């Protein structure tokens, strides 16, 4: 991905892989722009948060903006006070990891006017055809509309992150292209990229455009 906007918002269905894509995009953004941040605005998910990769991110010089309670034993759906830096610091480019579904996207509403007034943003819908409630384009569009209504920001693009976790094969990704294109046609938005586990990426060469290879975040189990 090139030419990152001031703010890149990652939204999508719960469990579509937003956090993993967001973390990987932050590393990519850092290569292109010195003052880079990743912001975790997830107020829904108790486990598996951006913060799990905090050390790798800060070691790479990426600012991590997240609730001090994320990943702790306290179940407080809190927003980080630092979040205003996302809109106010014009020299900093940020990848924003938004919570899943409309429930997660409500948190973004606080910033929506500032973001849309400035207009220098990308709002990406992360889709995964392997998730049971977004198996077809129609139900995916339904989730998109719910998210837009909740956060009051229209989507600008689609990220096809179809995967089955570690069991994902190149065929799984290839067979999802038609689905992603249908979501694109129904929404009138481009498929900005297809994100795949990095070891699968080479086998997709020539068969799928805009492939973005992902390193999977650490998982102990």
């Amino acid at each position: 991905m090139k030419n990152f906007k001031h703010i890149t918002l990652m939204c999508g269905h719960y469990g579509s892989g937003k956090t993993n894509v967001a973390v990987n995009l932050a590393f990519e953004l850092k290569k292109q722009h010195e003052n880079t941040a990743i912001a975790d605005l997830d107020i829904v998910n108790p486990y598996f948060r951006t913060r799990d990769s905090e050390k790798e991110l800060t070691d790479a010089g990426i600012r991590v903006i997240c609730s001090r309670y994320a990943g702790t034993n306290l179940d407080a759906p809190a927003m980080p006070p630092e979040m205003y830096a996302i809109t106010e610091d014009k020299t900093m480019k940020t990848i924003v990891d938004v919570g899943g579904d409309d429930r997660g996207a409500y948190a973004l509403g606080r910033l929506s006017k500032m973001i849309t007034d400035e207009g220098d943003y990308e709002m990406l819908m992360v889709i995964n055809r392997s998730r049971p409630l977004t198996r077809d384009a129609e139900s995916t569009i339904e989730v998109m509309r719910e998210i837009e209504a909740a956060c009051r920001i229209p989507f600008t693009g689609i990220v096809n992150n179809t995967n089955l976790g570690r069991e994902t094969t190149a065929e799984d990704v290839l067979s999802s292209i038609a689905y992603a294109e249908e979501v694109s046609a129904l929404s009138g938005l481009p498929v900005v990229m297809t994100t795949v586990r990095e070891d699968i990426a080479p086998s997709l060469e020539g068969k799928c455009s805009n492939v973005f290879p992902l390193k999977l975040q650490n998982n102990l189990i």
Partner: protein
Amino acid sequence: MSDKVLMKGNEAIAEAAIIAGCRHYFGYPITPQTEIAAYMAKRMPKIGGCFLQAESEIAAINMVYGVASAGKRVMTSSSSPGISLKGEGLSYMAGADMPCLVVNVQRGGPGLGGIQPSQSDYFQATKAGGHGDFRMIVLAPASVQEMAELTVKGFELADKYRMTSMLLADGTMGQMMEPVALDLEVKPAPEKPWATNGTKMQRAHNITNSLSLVAEELEALNFARYEKYAEIEKNEVMYEEYMMDDAEICIAAFGIASRVSRNAIDEARRQGIKVGMIRPITLWPFPAAPFKAAADKVKSFISVELSMGQMIEDVRLATECKKPVTLCNRVGGMIPSPEQVLEAIIKANNGGAN
């Protein structure tokens, strides 16, 4: 594209329950199981089912009691502190012989504890779900696939024996995502001639009740119920053995602890240590027989738990204390690492049983 979908453990439980014919869900939100309720809230209205967020856990379990009495498949779910609140209802349902599925996605305790994973409700699930003499069938899944399969199994066993099945998971199992095949086989629910679903003026009234005014009758009910429990202990034990054929050390672990242990066993085997595992799938009835048999073959046992040592008591009972049983644990929301388990294995192998 394979037929598998990527699901959180909590979602797999909810979808499997729907597949099993459950159309009534009552609950109250608590982390880390809230996705079960959220999934039901989205799906139930679309299939003519009932999702109801009750005003409390106590209300929810009593709604379950009501639907069970009407003869329908019904469930509730919660996490540790919420299950404690349901304890009274669990006992009443046992006293009235009502079938249902209760899910506990455990978190650290005691008290309000924390939201991170734990297995410290083992005692509660297997020995003291509430007051009085009663048992629950307790199922312990170790993968998202198994969460789906054991949900179906839980409903079937509950109906078969007219009692509560509890699915005992933990926060990590509930939150982690894995591919699941949802082509689950479901046996239809049996006839329930005892259900309070209307006499249609064609039969005598059925009564759902856990109150007995005559001591002799209450005693007889208890004896009869324990005869049923003995049948279950004979017929329904489930467990999995891993590398036990030549094992000199036996790990006892269920759920998330068994996954960590499996990694540690693989590494220990690479180092030439003969270690295996017995993974109970039913915690009650506890798989006592394989542990008893292993006690004649192995040097020692290691119970790997996310508790201060609860299942270890059943391992000691099952093995009649023939061999030492040591504990390898983390608590309060922490998970033992494969390295910690490996260290315990090496220590046991060197004869340092404690």
